């Protein structure tokens, strides 16, 4: 087989099986091949494009994203629920909302970081509290029948109905019973997804997280805005 094709296949196979290719890890030779051989580079890009996978380079490393609605390489909502350990849709969307809050703790926009080094569970809880504050305030005067499915009121109720911590003994255990536990569930998921690194209750963003935020959203902003505007 053509040597360049073989190398390109090797790179693609590492990437689609969830491996990291970095200048400093065991795949340094593949990284070198990707960056210095234009033939290999073109082949990798074209193969991944056919799989509907986007590739991003950040700080001497290669990272891939299946994007949205990628039926072969992406996750379905059901699979994400399983990974997260939640059952109800409103719990899933609350997890998404928590992830969104974590993103905004580190980034204002795809090109502007907040220079925050790490976040703790309590930071995320106050951020979610703040973003749902207005909805929660109105909940007192709202009839429960008015609450539509998949609305923010629904996740606000789920959030508001949880105590901050389940009990003193297992206050930092992941679970659906408390705000702390819920945020911990989300962080566990992000750690498993190689987006975050945990040390002594502090969560640091990994290069993969930064690469996705700065590159993916930069590239797809037009399309995402269109979806959000409902155009």
């Amino acid at each position, binding site marked *: 087989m053509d040597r360049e094709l073989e190398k390109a296949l090797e790179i693609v196979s590492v990437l689609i099986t969830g491996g990291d290719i970095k200048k400093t890890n065991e795949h340094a030779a593949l990284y070198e091949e990707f960056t210095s051989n234009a033939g290999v580079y073109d082949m990798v890009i074209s193969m991944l494009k056919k799989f509907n996978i986007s590739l991003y380079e950040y700080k001497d490393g290669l990272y891939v994203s299946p994007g949205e609605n990628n039926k072969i390489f992406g996750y379905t909502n059901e699979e994400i629920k399983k990974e997260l350990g939640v059952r109800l849709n409103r719990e899933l969307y609350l997890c998404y909302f928590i992830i969104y809050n974590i993103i905004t703790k580190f980034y204002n926009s795809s090109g502007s970081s907040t220079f925050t080094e790490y976040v703790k569970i309590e930071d995320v809880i106050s951020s979610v509290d703040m973003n749902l504050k207005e909805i929660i305030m109105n909940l007192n005067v709202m009839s429960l029948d008015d609450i539509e499915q998949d609305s923010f009121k629904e996740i606000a109720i789920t959030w508001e109905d949880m105590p901050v911590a389940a009990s003193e003994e297992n206050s930092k255990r992941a679970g659906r019973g408390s705000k702390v536990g819920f945020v911990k569930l989300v962080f566990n998921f992000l750690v498993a997804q190689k987006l975050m690194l945990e040390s002594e209750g502090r969560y640091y963003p990994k290069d993969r997280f930064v690469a996705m935020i700065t590159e993916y*959203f930069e590239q797809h902003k037009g399309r995402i805005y269109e979806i959000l505007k409902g155009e």
Partner: protein
Amino acid sequence: MAQEHILIRDIIQDHSERMLNIKKYYPYFKLSENAFTQFQGGKYEELDMGYILMAVLRFFIEENNFKEKDVYYEEYKEFVREIYRRDFMIPLDEDEEEEVSAYIFDKIKNDGKPFSYSYFDPAEKKKKTIRIKIIDSRIKNDKIGYFITSDAIEFYLDTKEVKDESTISISQVLLSKMISAKNFKGGIEVIKRINNEVGRLKARKNEVLNILNYDVFNGIKIYEEFLNSVIKWFDEEQKLFIKNMDLIKTALDRVESDSEYYNAVDDIYYLETELKMTISRHKELLTACTDLQMKADEIIEKAKFSKIKREFDFKNALGMIMEKDDTTLLSHIVMPLLGININKSFSLKSIDKMLTLKNDKKEANEIVKDHKEEEHYVYDDEIEDERIKHNFSNLIKELMECVFEYEKFDLVLFNTRLRNKYGDDVFKSSDYYSMLVHLSQKSEYDMDEIMEKQDTFFEDYLKEALKELDESQYRGLKLKLIYDSKEKIKFFEDACVTNIIFKLDYS
């Protein structure tokens, strides 16, 4: 009982210290009260003694401590004269100015006596008197020079951070004075104040960085203010640190020979250790500020770039999602972050569940209705590519028609042809100019070679245009481009291009 003891100690034992601490404020209030009402029948009542006093103190700090010279009466007079004219706009003739300045000077000097006030010391059960001078004098080269006292500097510093000067520098000037006056305990207090200031500036640095991140435009103003009030003083502050370290060293050298220094040796050593720590903290502040400068440059650079290029704003996007009140939209942000899903088989648990058909004891798992279909999006860059392709093809077709018609022609003729056909709007299109840029990459185009291999973006389009012609029309044809740098073709106010002569050549 213990509580009561503390209360009594606070009231009785510490009273003297409290009185000593507030003495620096006494002259200000004494002077500013009714200062001009009795003078010349209240003729100059509009003048504000409090303001004039603060201005004079700042002037003395500048002259004594930064320029390191005494102030002579003439200089003082000149300075206050400026104040009457600039700030009070009171028309005073020269004699009046002379008279008022002398009156103020005597007041500030308290007619040559220290300001004094009495208080009762409950610890010693007797009345004590505190004395304080603001301005002192000495004779040098047969001239009387005036200088500010350390109490007055301390008072001035306590009123507010000095905007145009570094607080650290001024505190250090005070420290020098205290060391010279053998007041080492007072020196330690000043160092504590410097440490506070260094800590405050470090915290301020982080605040500036945060503001820059959230609001670049306001952040730049605050950042520049911070640079002016902190970074530009570093050199001077470091010089003063060295000077003070030298003073402490000299004091330590004198310990052996001078009993006054000998008795204070512990304080001097403590002062030395504290100052060394302060110098190290000050260096850390310098590093932090250098880091701030680098980060600020990066942020400003990015902000300039993003003014042209729109970024994906997470906060704004969240606002849009919340306004639509549709939490499913959040998946558009979260899904792309996730890695590749490599688990494609059923888990053993699921197979087991299917086989045994157990019912869920807990709440049922809801299914998310994925009604979204993979959509076909036309991206902005694709629309743009299509436009460029369309415009380039038309322009190249026109160019080729000119080539066949005239064999030799220039850009002016080509432009006239375009104007006749498309109107002036064609020159408002950036594609026209970008086509010229691409065209100018070569000075000769060989049509046979282009049909075989295209080196440039322009050649790709040229090939497409040639394909539509009969092969005999372009076979063996070469197009030469001669750039006439003397002749410039002007389009708009600031837009002009060099004329190009196109010449056909058959090989």
